[in-house]
């Protein structure tokens, strides 16, 4: 561990301190938004193979009923977020900018919208195998952003063993506070979820890591810890990207995930608090994942807060409900550091959407500034949590030396956190360069 850890909260080296902008949303309880007239449900809301639709145009579905089934192990089913009629399966815009096949669901206006699917199940009676199957059936994916199918992560291969479950409650992105509210409002569901995950992975201990700007969440969870001491809560330094799993593991356990590797190689599994809380709520009832909490915030939003929305709600609908303003505006799905900007207001909220930001002119002005040559100020080097040399990578990228970047300067270890671009006084779009470089390298290799 670094020397600094002796003096402050546990943390990793480098990283940045952007203003957090969470004070408003972090204090307002989660509220439910009304149902929109139409839901857009992409078949590919997770990493892995898209789900296979099991409904047809004109079918009636009830809330909670599966509408698509998993296509193999690395895939999850999708459940209807509302009672209504299938309008069709069409190509619709998604957060990634590309159009993708999505189920269009017309919501019945007068319906009670009760969940009418699923049977209660007793987790304690299940075999480990059955538990993991139940997790897959719930359609659960990582709600922290990556949307990786949870049952895959929780299935530890025979030849590996995992000793610690790290529960990621950092929420290091500015503006976002949905995890924070989940921890405050559903601590018991979270504890349940943690125990399920521990069982599924066979770990004996779990650590919840929370940034120290959310001490109220730390207190709440500590009050709800089980007696046996298998779960603990640890406050870590508030620093972006503390929530990145590699950084959090380093902060909490002092272990480094090998370059190009995954946490299970060093005996760790990481899950987001939102994911486990949702698991804790859904599994006993045998229900599927049909809604999630998103943070709607940003200077352009009139009523910022955390809202529980059915999956598939177009962001335009959300914005109409909370009200927004501004002429020149940028919409971002997720946080300002890593979330993609979207161009179409009918883009839906999906399982991986953790927030919706509306940034107005004054906030984005700085980005329209001139790009200067790299003045080698070393800020990016001191910011990069992966200890890369973004300055040199950027200069190589400008000269199109993409192969050198990958072969000699570890381009592929960059996880595009954006810390380097954030601090660069020359406004060099480093992350964008690196994305392009990776893409071109991938093309060359193919």
């Amino acid at each position, binding site marked *: 561990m670094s020397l600094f850890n002796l003096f402050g909260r546990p943390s990793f080296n480098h990283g940045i301190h952007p203003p957090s902008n969470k004070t408003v949303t972090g204090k307002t309880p989660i509220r439910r938004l009304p149902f929109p007239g139409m839901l857009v449900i992409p078949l590919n809301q997770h990493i892995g193979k898209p789900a296979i639709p099991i409904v047809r145009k004109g079918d009636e579905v009830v809330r909670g009923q599966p509408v698509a089934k998993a296509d193999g192990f690395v895939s999850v089913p999708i459940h209807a977020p509302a009672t209504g009629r299938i309008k069709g399966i069409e190509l619709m815009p998604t957060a990634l900018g590309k159009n993708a096949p999505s189920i269009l669901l017309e919501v019945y206006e007068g319906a009670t919208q009760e969940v009418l699917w699923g049977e209660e199940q007793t987790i304690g009676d299940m075999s480990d195998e059955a538990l993991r199957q139940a997790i897959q059936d719930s359609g659960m994916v990582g709600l922290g952003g990556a949307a990786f199918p949870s049952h895959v992560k929780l299935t530890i291969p025979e030849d590996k063993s995992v000793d610690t479950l790290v529960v990621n409650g950092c929420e290091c992105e500015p503006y976002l506070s949905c995890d924070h509210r989940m921890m405050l409002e559903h601590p018991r569901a979270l504890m349940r979820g943690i125990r399920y995950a521990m069982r599924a992975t066979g770990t004996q201990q779990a650590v919840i890591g929370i940034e120290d700007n959310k001490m109220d969440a730390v207190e709440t969870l500590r009050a709800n810890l089980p007696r046996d001491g298998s779960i603990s809560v640890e406050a870590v330094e508030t620093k972006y990207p503390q929530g990145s799993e590699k950084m959090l593991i380093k902060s909490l356990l002092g272990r480094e995930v090998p370059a190009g590797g995954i946490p299970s190689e060093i005996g760790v599994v990481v899950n987001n608090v939102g994911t486990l809380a949702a698991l804790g709520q859904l599994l006993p009832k045998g229900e599927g994942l049909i809604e999630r909490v998103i943070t709607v915030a940003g200077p352009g939003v009139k009523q910022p807060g955390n809202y529980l929305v059915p999956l598939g709600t177009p962001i335009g609908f959300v914005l109409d409900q909370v009200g927004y303003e501004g002429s020149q505006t940028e919409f971002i799905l997720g946080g300002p550091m890593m979330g993609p900007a979207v161009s179409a207001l009918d883009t839906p909220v999906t399982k991986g959407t953790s927030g919706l930001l509306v940034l107005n002119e004054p906030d984005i002005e700085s980005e329209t500034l001139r790009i200067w*040559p790299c003045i080698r100020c070393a800020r990016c080097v001191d910011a990069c949590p992966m200890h890369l040399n973004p300055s040199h990578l950027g*200069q*190589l990228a*400008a*000269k199109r030396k993409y192969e050198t970047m990958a072969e000699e300067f570890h381009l592929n270890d960059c996880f595009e956190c954006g810390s380097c671009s954030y601090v660069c006084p020359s406004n060099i779009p480093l992350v964008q360069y690196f994305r392009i470089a990776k893409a071109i390298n991938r093309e060359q290799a193919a």
Partner: protein
Amino acid sequence: MNYESLSFIFLNAVLANNFVLALFLGLCPFLGVSGKLNTAVPMGLATMFVMLVSSVCAYGINIVLVGLDIEFLRLIAYIVVIASAVQLVEMTLKKFSPGLFRALGIFLPLITTNCAILGLALFQTFKEYDFLQSLVYALGAGTGFILAIMLMAGLREKLELSNLPSVTQGAAVSLMLGGLLSLSFMGFAGLGGQ
């Protein structure tokens, strides 16, 4: 500091009277082979190596020349003997240490006809250095050459990533860099002078 002490001879040849930057010797490889560090370094090492060989040769031949009183043949003798010695070393190297040969070998023939080598041999004769002094002088001159060519190569690699104006691309910028390096090395002038 005693200017015949070994440490003075060494440091003086490395810094204050650097062969390349102060005495203008060995400029062709300095300008020609300094584009990339991974060729500049072996070139530097090979040069130092040949310097040591020729220093020893020159010391030996000079004794013979002086003994026979045919010093007017010095130039011809030096160049011929150094060239053959390098060839010999090269062949021996090829036979007994192919790895080393591959690293340095391609540079050896280039170096034989390089004025830093002959210059070293002549200077050590003019300065009337004894055997050990000559050897240290060669070591210093070689180290100075490596230092200069490495600095140059590093700078030129860095410049590859910058946006040089169209007119400065090519030899001109190398010369200017050489000039700036030479200006910087003037800081060592007078080292040990008092």
